[in-house]
């Protein structure tokens, strides 16, 4: 069915567009932005969505999601993860390879894509592992995974500690033009740390992960990107020092991009003061100075992308001693209202915020989405940036109810999510 979305505020940063108007979707593609809609309105075959007072934007693209399938279906499945994405306004998700088995070969990639085609209501773009089994030792079959549909490589969750292996991975991907996504962490420095190292960890008697643990690896990977010319994307940047390193590298012309998550630019480690395992996260939520630096980085463009690092876990796994709880926050369904706080605080304009959720991530993985230009696949989100919402984890579509934002009063609510010209979510 063709769709006419009328009377909305259309924001498409890929075309520097911000105007009131209409969007017409025909055969699953953006047809045009018609000004005269009388005829379309009369057409019985056209579904009409009234976007009065709402923003129409390209569907959000989440560059960092854990869908948990195959292997950890009790935490999340491709089906539930995609439903959560749609509810959060995301039309595409990029899923990390730390499943079981690890997505380190083309057959796992094909399995994920098959599942996504049959059960997923949004687009799924897999990331392949850098090394076999994410063990950091020998390169995975990156070329075959790329052929099968992987849009980047990463050993997310398990940093590649061996610099020579990382160097070779970065050289090798140049043949395929896909980015290397770095989970930047020196695991020797992190030790058995479970939270940010600082005053709060001292008070709580929990083992800390210093900022340096991230920063030494960001520095190393930037150095290797300079050596190899690869596109390096730094996942979940959490420290002021990492922001500085990326800013500096960009100035020198290094091909590096960075992402920040809503929880890292919203929370400090004080969220853990009651041993709340729902705020246990790797990299950990940090200090106020780090939060401020992330905002500064988002503002000046050092941080290109907002990604959720959606990491669902079961409730039982989180209701344990802090040391035993797994790292991770369920992020897809709170990303929009948390990002809109940046707009309210004047860190970003609404256009800049949308840019970091649409065209910027699309560019990193080289997909022709994240835009409302005529002729592209109709992936859109229609949302109310002001509507007041109370975060209720029980209402999450995701199986992962692990959010530190439960009960928070926020603004911003998705009205409709459209994928390939099909409405997949309506409030």
């Amino acid at each position: 069915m063709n769709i006419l979305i009328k009377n909305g505020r259309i924001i498409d940063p890929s075309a520097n567009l911000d105007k009131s108007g209409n969007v017409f979707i025909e055969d699953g593609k953006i047809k045009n932005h018609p000004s005269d809609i009388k005829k379309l309105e009369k057409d019985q075959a056209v579904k009409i969505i009234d976007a009065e007072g709402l923003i129409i934007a390209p569907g959000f693209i989440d560059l960092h999601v854990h869908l948990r399938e195959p292997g950890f279906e009790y935490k999340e499945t491709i089906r539930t993860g995609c439903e959560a994405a749609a509810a959060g306004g995301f039309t595409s998700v990029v899923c990390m390879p730390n499943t079981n088995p690890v997505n380190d070969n083309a057959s796992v990639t094909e399995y994920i894509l098959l599942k996504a085609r049959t059960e997923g209501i949004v687009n799924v773009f897999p990331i392949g592992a850098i090394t076999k089994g994410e063990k950091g030792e020998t390169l995975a079959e990156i070329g075959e995974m790329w052929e099968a549909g992987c849009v980047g490589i990463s050993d997310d969750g398990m940093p590649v500690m061996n610099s020579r292996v990382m160097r070779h991975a970065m050289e090798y991907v140049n043949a395929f033009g896909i980015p290397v996504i770095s989970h930047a962490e020196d695991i020797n420095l992190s030790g058995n740390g479970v939270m940010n190292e600082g005053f709060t960890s001292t008070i709580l008697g929990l083992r800390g992960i210093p900022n340096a643990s991230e920063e030494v690896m960001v520095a190393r990977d930037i150095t290797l990107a300079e050596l190899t010319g690869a596109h390096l994307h730094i996942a979940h940047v959490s420290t002021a020092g990492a922001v500085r390193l990326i800013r500096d590298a960009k100035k020198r012309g290094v091909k590096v991009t960075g992402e920040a998550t809503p929880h890292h630019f919203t929370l400090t480690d004080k969220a853990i003061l009651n041993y709340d395992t729902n705020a246990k996260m790797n990299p950990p939520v940090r200090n106020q100075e780090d939060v401020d630096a992330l905002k500064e980085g988002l503002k000046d463009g050092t941080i290109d992308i907002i990604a959720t690092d959606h990491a669902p876990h079961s409730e039982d796994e989180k209701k344990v001693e802090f040391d035993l709880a797994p790292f991770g926050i369920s992020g897809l369904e709170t990303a929009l209202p948390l990002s809109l706080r940046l707009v309210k605080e004047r860190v970003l304009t609404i256009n800049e915020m949308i840019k970091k959720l649409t065209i910027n991530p699309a560019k990193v993985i080289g997909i022709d989405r994240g835009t409302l230009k005529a002729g592209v696949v109709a992936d859109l989100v229609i949302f109310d940036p002001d509507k007041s919402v109370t975060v209720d984890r029980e209402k999450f579509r995701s199986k992962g109810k692990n959010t530190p934002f439960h009960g928070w009063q926020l603004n911003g609510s998705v009205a409709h999510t459209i994928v390939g010209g099909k409405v997949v979510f309506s409030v």
Partner: protein
Amino acid sequence: MVFQRKHILGLEDLTAEEIKLVLDTAESMKEVSLRDVKKVPALKGITVVNLFFEPSTRTRSSFEIAEKRLSADVLNFTPDQSSVVKGETLLDTARNLEAMGATVIVIRHAMSGAPWVLARELDSSIINAGDGSHEHPSQALLDLFTIREIKKEIGGLKVVIVGDILHSRVARSDIWGFMKLGAEVRVVGPPTMIPREIENVDVKIYYNLEEALKGADVVIMLRIQKERLGAELFPSLREYSRFYGLTRERLGLAKKDATLMHPGPINRGVELSSEVADDVHSVILDQVTNGISVRMAMLYLVASGGGNG
């Protein structure tokens, strides 16, 4: 003043008034311990479980005697005899104990914050008997009680805590307790064993033991855990002892009437030289006796306090 708390999880949470109330109550309890019949019916009909996930003969025995003197029904639950080894979660274990009628759970656990899991999810009163590197409130309260008996007043004392502050729950609870009652607290140890930003709670940091000891009224020596050796925090016990071991000569830098404490068990020749270890023994025995009174006070206050109506 009425004690309003349902749990005692740490001294960080308690106000100076609440700490004083525990100490005052412990004084009355000490009187019970001096009677011929060392028993009062205060906790009659109440089931207290000692849920000890870490071996601890002293603390557990002390709690057990305290509970029995208050006429509570006592159940000692240690993981090696239980389903914990079969993979049961902390919460399920505790829920089972609660279903058997426990209303007070005294928990010792190797992981910081474990008592919080129970306090959040259960109806019972929770007493923290030591969690990971976090807090050990009963130990700090008995240190405070002992020092108050000896020095009469805690405000204005110079208290030095020596050793592995980073991993010590005793240090954290002692810091809160002594600071809240107005003492000046110094910590001293190798920089690798001083936790980050601890100066934010207004303690003074020293890396030199002699400097730290000057003018001290109370010296608390922490036990060096030999298993830390592998963690590159210090090169050898020999070198540790050379720089941070307490000798008679070094102790001479403190005030003449300085009180030396050690939460035990002592590593002779490591944190304390053998001669100092002999000297310190009398206070250690006082601490053990006082430990029972302080734990009686904690149990009595949470079991009869506002939190339980």
